[in-house]
């Protein structure tokens, strides 16, 4: 750039300093575009982009500033680790190359000028040895370690000083650290055994001389080109951070006090975590952890955070080893990993002897076939690079970083094969254990909806219907022998597990109050149980509920709903699908043994609706919406990076993994929803694209507003606001840039209040002018949603405090925000146009009926129920007004799920007496649909989602259509 024609010379900046934030955005946009162009093209660009001279001067001045900086200004971060230049001299050594850096400082490849040999020189971080005592301790231990001379230990040559720098010269080991060699499938049995033997030999040698490693881990064990292991950093296992040296400066007994925690947490022994001094048995624990990782592919303890991990090391059993590992080797590993030192091997030589015995035995019998063949290949093609004593950390890190940074852009290649061909929608695939039968639901939904169970023999059998009554059902699952199919059947508030014979027959109730049931043994099942209110936990028992115990309790004891559970093949772990009052949450991994909240797995944030395990337990699968619709994801167990498998405009939900692990069956589909208007001319369609929902008719009746759904990784669904001019049919995006979950139009049709969703700030409430007379204003700062206009310039809405939602009111400029109802609610269902009645959905803790719809007078009067044993049915996100009013408050509209109601697809309209927001209710609310139908003047409208207009014959409605079929997705690269 330096020689290219400069566009402008530096100029006097006077007069350019009065830049407002808005102005800066303008300047910035032009500047960015200009900088992206070649210098010679900028002038032409500016000619057209800058209409006013002042703007142009400003941009040109900044371009000049940029060019003078040559792009390097601030390019190096403010703080950096000290570096030695290649070619410089350190003591008797010429620096040849920088190898890497680790906790111990930067490592260089160097040449010994006297002996001519190559070696590694580790430069200690500045300030690390500032303290005299720490320095003495460190140097003494390094000196000790330099006395070690063993083929399995990288030799330390010298600890030296030059120009105030302390360095360690050591053997240059060419090879790859075990951390780069072990992949998630572990090493071949005999290889792992051989490496462990060599490490134990090196440890035995050092321990006999009273030297402990303290920080043995895969990154510190390098496999050389000729296949032998060398342990690095013996006796140097002090993490020389100032923080740690701070501990060493404690006056008492500093030279021998080894209380500071060193080493890598994953390989730290329990006693190290407790801050006790390390001894030889601490190394033996690390050897056990290393051996375990070589055999299983993952370390023996897992945790998402340092806290969880250390807690696992201190308290939990190590993860089990794969079944191909001989029991003798399993018991050696276990003994190394005993929590108490006294229970471990006491000397490395004992481990070595035990491993030798197994090796003699194993090479005779099991060696060649112990691993699947692709293992060898994947090792061989792994990147080859030289790694030198101590310098391996960052290289491995760099490679890992490139490879695994959310590789959702490079999903594994997949191939699709259509399995069903329904003209509407099927969902919830399940495969029989032998993979030859496919069960599924003929349902418009992937969740709770009227549905029948079907079965199909693979590959070409015709689908056969097994249930015939269209009850609300979800979630199908085969019994272990394939003879029965379980499903959840929903009647009012009862969620029960039923079975039907796979070859046809009469359905029978298996377990009441049990949903999402799966078999985890011949007569053992795991399912979700509603305890009180909404709260759903995962439990396991036999088929008669004998021996029932809790597996997972959602942390929120009121609105936590664990719906689905999937046991890992090794029976140790459970994948959980759960939701709260706002919808699906990310998936969760918890121990089957119970008592733990586990941790989030799969993409997050996301809405995760189903999960599965590969047959070998090494992969976890998810169907989740991380912001781009529901798609399949997978993640290596336990803590690989989530990878997106499928993508595109259609969505995938439900996962049935084929027994051979090469494919999964999923439901692929697309939902469409159109807005219709019913008026004196009859019913006509207003929208035809995408998923249009939550319509409302403008007060003057000339427009229909609606939301056009966009994808969201959050627990609620949002869309963009559109308006259709009913006279011309013109469709406008009325509030571009806002992702809206609910809106309300003011009575005068001039203003709109809405809840807008932002990935960063969550959901907040905004006010905007539909006539664009003022820019949108943000009214709330904290998580809040479902706003309603009320008279007197008031807005009612929900505000989240902790994990609970409360009904609030405020003035329409955002002032005077205050709670209206003291108790939390599940949802705000409606506010009457006169602002006097607030209808909310509440959970009923301690009741077996999960729902009640309660009316609260906003003046603080006594609340009364609309119904107490009623489902507020339907996905709330459709914007379906379960209770609503005509604008003049002459009619009340609602739809409730009441006993005796055949279909939940009908809505009711009730005329109101003047000055009233509700009809006269039976005391205790509506109990049956007959009571409802007995109200004078009631009218039934055959619409599920109805949005009132000026009179009961004018209303907007939504009609949804779902096209969904089952596909087999063939995976490769797994």
């Amino acid at each position: 750039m330096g020689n290219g024609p400069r566009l402008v010379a530096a100029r006097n900046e006077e007069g350019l300093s009065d830049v407002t934030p808005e102005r800066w955005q303008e300047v910035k946009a032009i500047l960015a575009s200009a900088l992206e162009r070649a210098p010679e093209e900028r002038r032409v660009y500016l000619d057209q982009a800058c209409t006013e001279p002042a703007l142009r001067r400003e941009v040109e001045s900044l371009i000049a500033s940029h060019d003078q900086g040559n792009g390097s200004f601030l390019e190096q971060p403010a703080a950096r680790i000290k570096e030695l230049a290649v070619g410089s001299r350190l003591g008797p050594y010429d620096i040849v190359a920088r190898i890497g850096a680790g906790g111990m400082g930067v490592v260089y490849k160097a040449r010994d000028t006297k002996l001519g040999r190559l070696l590694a020189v580790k430069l200690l971080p500045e300030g690390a040895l500032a303290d005299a005592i720490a320095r003495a301790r460190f140097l003494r231990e390094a000196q000790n370690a330099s006395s070690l001379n063993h083929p399995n230990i990288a030799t330390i040559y010298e600890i030296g000083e030059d120009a105030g720098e302390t360095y360690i010269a050591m053997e240059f080991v060419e090879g790859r650290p075990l951390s780069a060699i072990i992949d998630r499938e572990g090493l071949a049995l005999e290889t792992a055994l051989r490496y462990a033997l060599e490490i134990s030999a090196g440890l035995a040698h050092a321990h006999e001389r009273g030297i402990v490693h303290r920080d043995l881990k895969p990154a510190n064990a390098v496999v050389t080109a000729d296949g032998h292991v060398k342990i690095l950093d013996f006796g140097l296992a002090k993490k020389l951070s100032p923080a740690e040296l701070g501990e060493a400066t404690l006056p008492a007994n500093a030279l021998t006090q080894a209380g500071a925690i060193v080493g890598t947490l994953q390989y730290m022994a329990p006693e190290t975590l407790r801050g006790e001094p390390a001894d030889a048995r601490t190394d033996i624990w690390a050897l056990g952890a290393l051996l375990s990782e070589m055999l299983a592919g993952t370390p023996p303890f897992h945790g998402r955070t340092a806290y969880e991990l250390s807690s696992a090391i201190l308290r939990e059993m190590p993860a089990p080893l794969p079944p191909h590992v001989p029991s003798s080797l399993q018991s050696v590993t276990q003994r190394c990993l005993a929590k108490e030192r006294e229970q471990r091997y006491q000397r490395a030589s004992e481990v070595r002897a035990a491993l030798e015995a197994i090796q003699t035995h194993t090479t005779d019998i099991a060696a060649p076939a112990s691993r699947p063949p692709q293992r060898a290949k994947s090792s061989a093609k792994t990147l080859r690079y030289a790694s030198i004593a101590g310098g391996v950390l960052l290289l491995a890190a760099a490679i890992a970083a490139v490879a695994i940074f959310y590789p959702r852009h490079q999903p594994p290649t997949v191939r699709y094969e259509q399995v069903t061909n329904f003209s509407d929608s099927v969902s919830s695939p399940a495969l029989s254990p032998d993979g030859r039968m496919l069960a599924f639901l003929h349902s418009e939904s992937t969740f709770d909806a009227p549905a029948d169970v079907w079965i199909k023999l693979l590959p070409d059998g015709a689908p056969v219907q097994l249930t015939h009554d269209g009850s609300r059902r979800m979630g199908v699952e085969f019994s272990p022998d394939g003879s029965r199919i379980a499903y959840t059947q929903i009647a009012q508030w009862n969620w029960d597990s039923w079975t039907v014979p796979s070859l046809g027959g009469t359905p029978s109730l298996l377990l009441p109050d049990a949903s999402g049931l799966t078999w985890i043994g011949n007569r053992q099942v795991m399912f979700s149980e509603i305890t009180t209110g909404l709260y759903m936990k995962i439990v396991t028992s036999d088929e008669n509920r004998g021996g029932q115990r809790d597996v997972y309790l959602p942390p929120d004891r009121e609105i936590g709903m664990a719906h689905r559970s999937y046991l890992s093949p090794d029976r140790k772990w459970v994948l959980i699908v759960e939701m709260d009052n706002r919808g699906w949450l990310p998936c969760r991994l918890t121990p089957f043994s119970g008592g733990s909240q586990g941790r989030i797995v799969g993409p997050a944030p996301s809405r995760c609706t189903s999960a599965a395990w590969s047959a070998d337990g090494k992969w976890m699968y998810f169907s989740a919406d991380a912001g781009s619709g529901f798609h399949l994801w997978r993640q290596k167990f336990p803590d690989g990076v989530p990878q997106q498998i499928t993508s595109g405009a259609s969505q995938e939900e439900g996962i049935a993994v084929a027994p051979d692990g090469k494919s999964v069956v999923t439901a692929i589909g697309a939902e469409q929803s159109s807005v219709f208007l019913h008026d004196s001319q009859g019913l006509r369609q207003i929208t035809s694209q995408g998923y249009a929902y939550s319509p409302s008719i403008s007060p003057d009746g000339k427009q229909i507003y609606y939301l056009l759904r966009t994808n969201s990784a959050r627990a609620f669904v949002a869309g963009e606001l559109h308006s259709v001019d009913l006279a011309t049919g013109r469709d406008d995006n009325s509030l571009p840039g806002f992702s809206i979950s609910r809106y309300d139009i003011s009575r005068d049709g001039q203003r709109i209040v809405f809840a807008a969703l932002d990935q960063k700030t969550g959901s907040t409430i905004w006010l905007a002018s539909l006539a664009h007379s003022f820019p949108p204003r943000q009214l709330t700062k904290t998580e809040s949603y479902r706003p309603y206009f009320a008279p007197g310039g008031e807005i009612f809405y929900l505000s989240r405090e902790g994990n609970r939602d409360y009904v609030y009111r405020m003035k329409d400029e955002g002032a005077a925000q205050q709670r209206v109802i003291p108790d939390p609610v599940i949802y705000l269902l409606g506010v009457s146009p006169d602002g006097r009645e607030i209808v909310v959905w509440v959970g009923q803790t301690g009741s077996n009926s999960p729902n009640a719809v309660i009316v609260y007078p906003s003046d603080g009067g006594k609340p009364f129920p609309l119904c107490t044993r009623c489902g507020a049915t339907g996905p709330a996100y459709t914007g379906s007004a379960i209770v609503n009013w005509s604008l003049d408050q002459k009619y009340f509209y609602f739809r409730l799920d009441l006993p005796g109601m055949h279909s939940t697809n009908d809505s009711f309209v009730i005329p109101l007496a003047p000055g009233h927001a509700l009809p006269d209710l039976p005391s205790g609310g509506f109990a049956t649909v007959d009571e409802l139908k007995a109200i004078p003047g009631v009218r039934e409208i055959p619409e599920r989602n109805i949005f009132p207009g000026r009179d009961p014959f004018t209303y907007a409605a939504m009609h949804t259509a779902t096209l969904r079929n089952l596909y087999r997705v063939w995976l490769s690269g797994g």
Partner: protein
Amino acid sequence: MCAASSTRINRLLADWGQGNEEAREALIPVVYDELRRVARRHLWRERPDHTLQSAALVNEAYLRLVREEAPQWQNRAHFFGVAAQMMRRILVDHARNRLAAKRGAGAPRLTLDPELAPAQKRGIDLVALDDAVGKLAALDPQQGRLIELRFFGGLSIEETAVVLGVSPATVKREWATARAWLRREMKKDSAT
């Protein structure tokens, strides 16, 4: 757990707050290390054996952050925001002190920490930069954060993009324009 060592950073922070310059200097490498480590762990999802070293354990603040961490970017972003801010404060405070020492306002401190050397050798006046970043942040808060994360926090373009929740291309664009603005701003100041 490791209570004895976990208070170290907090102690340093407190000491620094009371004007102890050694504490500040001791903090620089610790916080920087920590930042890089957590960056790698959280942004790259690196295997823990490469990263979770003892410094992670000793930092109570870190433990608190990771323990409370919900699986959402916001919290990570918050961590990096705080850590980068802390780096900025430490480094700028250090530079300001050096400046004061040079002008004879205090006893000269000659312990130049090498971690700072690159920035100073390149002639960047951190105190002036700090002021300029403040002005930029008033104009464009996101660019202010970006400078903090990139320059003071040492995050890469990609890491910064994840933390800010924008695309790397956006970070590049914002980075280029912010630097052009800052450079001019600093020149303007030094001229007056």
